[in-house]
């Protein structure tokens, strides 16, 4: 069974979003997504200041098995990218909810996300 954390929200495309309470959000991929993709070998992240529209593919996570787009959950602006993933993309596997986060962004239009229990139901 994959882990779903109660402190954050989720998208249908298996990203998680954590409200940092200061107008910024942290985002990554869920445990279910990382398990499905397998060993991560490369993460392509946007630059600080990049803007993305809702549903844009704005990051790519690549495992040995496949490349997968990560989608913007709303119109947003990137405020930080997880540079540790350049050298240690495997953090996305070993710590998808903590050290393996992908980007921090700000947005004022975040809407329609699932809470943990709704997301967990989609995985059944």
């Amino acid at each position, binding site marked *: 069974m994959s882990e779903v954390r109660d402190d954050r929200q989720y998208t249908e495309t298996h990203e998680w979003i954590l409200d940092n309470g200061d107008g910024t959000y942290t985002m990554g991929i869920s445990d279910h997504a990382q398990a499905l993709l*397998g060993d991560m070998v*490369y993460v*392509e992240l946007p630059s600080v200041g990049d803007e993305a529209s809702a549903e844009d593919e704005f990051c*790519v996570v*690549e495992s*040995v*098995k496949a490349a997968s787009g990560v989608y913007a959950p709303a119109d947003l602006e990137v405020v930080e990218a997880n540079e540790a993933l350049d050298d240690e993309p*495997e953090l996305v596997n070993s710590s998808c909810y903590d050290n393996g986060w992908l980007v921090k962004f700000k947005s004022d239009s975040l809407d329609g996300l699932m809470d943990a229990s709704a997301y967990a139901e989609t995985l059944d």
Partner: protein
Amino acid sequence: MKHTPLYQAHIDAGGKMVDFGGWEMPLNYGSQIEEHHQVRNDVGMFDVSHMTTVDFKGVEAKKFLQILIANDVDKLKTEGKALYSCMLNEAGGVVDDLIVYYHDDENYRMVINAGTTEKDIAWINSQAENFDVSVEPKLDLAMIAVQGPNARAKVFEAMPGVEDVCGELKPFNAASLGSLFIARTGYTGEDGFEIMLPEKSAEFTWKMLMEVGVKPCGLGARDTLRLEAGMSLYGSEMNDEVSPLEAALTWTVDLSDEDRRFVGRDALEALKSKGTNNTIVGLVLEGKGVIRDHQKVVTNLGKGEVTSGTFSPTMGKAIALASVPKGSEGLCEIEMRKSNVSAKIVKPPFVRNGKVLV
């Protein structure tokens, strides 16, 4: 879906099971990269029971194999000696690639791919009609490949009596011990054994190997290991429409005996005199990312295509085998997800016996 005798052992070991040509097989048991390193640095084992063993028996067994496959079994003179070959259709395309083992001129054993088994058996039977040979698929055999620098020592430790029979066995040779058939062959670029054994002994043997520290490895690691070793995969580097001459497998085609008119020979000779356009080369990506199957390649001589692409855990870079115009060299461009990325053209293998060669 079909299951090997080790299916339950895979489930018990946490194997992530996937559909592999109708067989439910382990892709990995957690991390395919760790399993890859395990084989390169120490020892791992693979369940390859889905592959098929076929025995050939009869007074015309040798004569038949001399027309069935493109390499010449006349090279096989000592018991247990192995030969890698392609089996061709009339047009010179590859029906399958295989290993044939010699017992004597009237007894041979062949190992063919899992995904092509039905097609191969039908093809072999259709070719065998006018020969005094019996074609006997051994569907009740399991096969375990134990691979890595410490593979032989661990097999000797786990399986009593094997060292007496296989201690001096040279690469690409096999020996029998009771109902076991043990070959010093593999698909990883490391030393090791491929052990054919009765279905009912498979789980016990697997557990004995685990007890001495041999870790189970899945099909994911098997693919990255064979790709680093520069070994062809049927369906990727070659198929029914690609000849060995275009797949860097010319070394497996023996044209020396003019009188040996094997199936596909006429087509290969015609192709040879006309000249082939493409061959298989290795690629090493210069930038970041992972090369994927079927991506387009442009070399100094024209267009090509990736036949097998992956990330090499040993090199920490993306590598590939690709079909490109013969004589291509230097750098090429690969059309990746969003942009073109440069790659260096190299001669495989990339890695053998733990060492990077490119």
